[in-house]
């Protein structure tokens, strides 16, 4: 209650001060009048009475001052005063201000760009209604780890390399079995993306095709731009496919957004399909890093030209990703329990008897494999599919963090340099009674004044950086059309404030060491650098050189493979560079690096032709 009054009073004090001043004038004038009138009644002359009244008041200005002191909030007043002072001094030192603001803008801008990318690639949910109700089905036991452990285990065979997590693959018969008992879900959908040749008649080109179950679009809850989307009617018979839905971007680029496209024939790997509809704008499928051009039924003929998929019979061939939509109000845990019962029953009754060449222990382990449900609001984000983007993002994150550190060190160095020339002023302040807190807050106000315009300037910098970053392999595939968001702007301000604090606080220690007496004596002699300040400055310069070196090495390691994406992933190479110094550790991870280097050929999605799937992971 009182706090509320206090805040209201503070707002009034800050913004309607003249009102308070007027009230004070009225009060004091009235007091003097009444006091004088009283004294005149007691026999004084008017002049005497007024004089006596004023004396009684004890000084109009003093009284006003003590009222002001009661009403003001010194911390805020001081901050406002500090900001004003910082603004005035900085606007006088144009070169310093310009350099510092621009340097900060670069550092902040790069970070905002990277944040935008991350937000859009890794954090943004699918553009579908209630994405929070989507779950990815995963089996933590499948994946390369388990195949390694199970040694002679005859299956699973994987369609491609897989690093587990929510990227788990299932077999097509398993999908159909699960689909039949999917009570906890509104619907269960299967999908897998693959490169294929698409022909519109005259032109044949390679594009990413999404093989999706008939339930795919209804589980997602998206509406077509044109015509209809695929429905359970389209995936009735395994090995047959008649319809195709175009992605919105593909429809725009290949057909110029022609509404007469419905009913035309599109040939996918020599299978003629009828275009029945166009997916909604902004919907790019359910995988973060691959954007399908067209959606075809998962019952697509298996002998159409792909090596392995679609495979509609093999229980030992894992190639589809599964996701589902929970019933309204249903919990992930409850659904997982129900689905596990079903999953175990299928494993026990149908699949376990098919196992050959395994011992009892392995068979028991197989029967007990759990099914897990992971949040699927962002579609498929885990495992191999996102790795190219994630690797690049991690690298970019590292780079941007280094850039920001470099910028902090740079600007802190500048401020420190300025601080040494200002030691006289600081000493004077200290000797006049400025507390340490006041000196620190003045310094912080100054860096805040530097950081805020830098935050604004950082947005164009971020835009440019984003253009650059979207050319990085992996990211280009994941998000070819990233843009700056409101969130990015907010982050810019947040980063700016944090940077300001860091930059402002770095030189403070040295400043507080200034001894007023010594500094004042040497006021005329300029540059009174104390030893510790000098040492700190040297440290800053060293850090700067070191960080620049790190940045250069990252850059050079990036630019080499930029020509071709087929080489080892960029991250691998960076970890090489980073650990070269520690040669022992480097040697220890060499086999791993080699393995990575060999496998990463197939890790890039667009390069994944089944024939080149990494043998090791089969």
């Amino acid at each position, binding site marked *: 209650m009182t706090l509320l009054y206090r805040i209201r009073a503070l707002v009034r004090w800050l913004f309607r001060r003249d009102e308070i001043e007027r009230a004070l004038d009225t*009060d004091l004038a009235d007091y003097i009048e009444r006091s004088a009138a009283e004294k005149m009644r007691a026999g004084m002359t008017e002049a005497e009475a007024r004089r006596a009244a004023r004396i009684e008041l004890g000084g109009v200005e*003093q009284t006003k001052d003590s009222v002001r002191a009661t009403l003001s909030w010194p911390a805020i007043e001081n901050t406002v005063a500090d900001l004003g002072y910082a603004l005035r001094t900085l606007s006088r030192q144009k070169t310093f201000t310009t350099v510092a603001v621009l340097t900060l803008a670069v550092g902040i801008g790069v970070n905002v760009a990277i944040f935008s990318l991350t937000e859009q690639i890794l954090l943004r949910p699918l553009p579908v209604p209630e994405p929070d109700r989507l779950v990815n089905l995963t089996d933590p036991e499948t994946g390369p780890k388990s195949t390694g452990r199970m040694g002679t285990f005859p299956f699973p065979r994987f369609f491609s390399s897989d690093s587990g997590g929510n990227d788990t693959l299932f077999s097509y018969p398993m999908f159909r079995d699960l689909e039949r008992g999917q009570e906890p879900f509104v619907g269960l959908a299967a999908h897998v993306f693959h490169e294929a040749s698409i022909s519109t008649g005259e032109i044949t080109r390679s594009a990413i095709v999404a093989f999706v179950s008939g339930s795919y679009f209804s589980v997602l809850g998206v509406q077509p731009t044109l015509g209809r989307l695929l429905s359970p009617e389209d995936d009735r018979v395994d090995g047959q496919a008649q319809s195709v839905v175009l992605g919105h971007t593909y429809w725009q680029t290949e057909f110029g957004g022609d509404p007469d496209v419905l009913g035309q024939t599109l040939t996918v790997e020599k299978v003629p399909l009828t275009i029945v509809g166009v997916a909604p704008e902004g919907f790019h499928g359910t995988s973060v890093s691959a954007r399908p051009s067209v959606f075809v039924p998962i019952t697509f003929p298996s002998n159409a030209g792909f090596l392995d998929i679609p495979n509609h019979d093999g229980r030992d061939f894992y190639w589809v990703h599964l996701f589902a939509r929970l019933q309204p109000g249903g919990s992930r845990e409850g659904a997982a329990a129900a689905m596990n019962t079903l999953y175990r029953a299928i494993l026990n009754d149908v699949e376990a008897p098919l196992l050959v060449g395994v011992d009892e222990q392995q068979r028991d382990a197989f029967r007990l494999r759990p099914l897990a449900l992971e949040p699927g609001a962002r579609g498929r984000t885990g495992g191999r599919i996102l790795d190219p983007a994630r690797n690049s993002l991690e690298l970019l994150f590292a780079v941007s963090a280094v850039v920001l550190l470099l910028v902090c060190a740079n600007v802190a160095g500048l401020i420190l340099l300025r601080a040494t020339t200002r030691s006289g002023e600081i000493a004077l302040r200290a000797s006049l009674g400025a507390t340490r807190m006041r000196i620190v807050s003045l310094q912080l106000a100054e860096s805040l004044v530097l950081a805020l315009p830098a935050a604004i300037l950082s947005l164009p910098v971020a835009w440019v950086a984003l253009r650059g970053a979207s050319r990085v392999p992996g990211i280009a595939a994941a998000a070819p059309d990233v843009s700056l968001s409101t969130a990015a702007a907010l982050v810019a301000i947040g980063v700016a404030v944090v940077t300001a604090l860091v930059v402002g606080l770095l030189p403070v220690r040295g400043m507080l060491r200034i001894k007023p007496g010594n500094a004042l004596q040497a006021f005329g002699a300029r540059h009174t650098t104390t030893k510790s300040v000098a040492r700190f400055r040297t440290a800053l310069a060293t850090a700067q050189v070191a960080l620049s070196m790190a940045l250069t090495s990252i850059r050079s390691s990036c630019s080499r493979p930029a020509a071709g994406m087929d080489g080892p992933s960029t991250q691998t190479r960076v970890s090489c560079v980073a650990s070269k110094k520690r040669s022992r550790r480097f040697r220890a991870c060499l086999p791993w690096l080699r393995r990575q280097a060999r496998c990463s050929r197939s890790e890039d999605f667009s390069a994944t032709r089944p024939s080149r799937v990494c043998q090791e992971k089969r």
Partner: protein
Amino acid sequence: MARLPKGSDDGKLNIPQGTLELLILTIVRREPLHGYGIAQRLKALTRGTFEINPGSLFPALYALERDGKLRCEERLSDNNRQARYYTLTSVGRTQLEREEQRWERVTAAIASVLQGA
């Protein structure tokens, strides 16, 4: 808060710490009053024992107004000048009642110590 007036030799006393608020609120409870009026009423009620100077009175009044315990209205006074009259608010009334009770307990406690000694 406000500085307390210095005591002098002519029978005046310092206003005990923390009681100025209680005194002001009590005085304006009866009727809305201007600053000078409050000072005079205090002097009259204590027969000159407590005298408050404007340098302490006004900061206290403005603090009470800030905290919502007093409200101010501007009126034209008898000789056609603007004057600000301070009135008790409901928040102020609650505060006053609490302070009164507290004060009664304090004085009773002190009295019992003095009598028992």
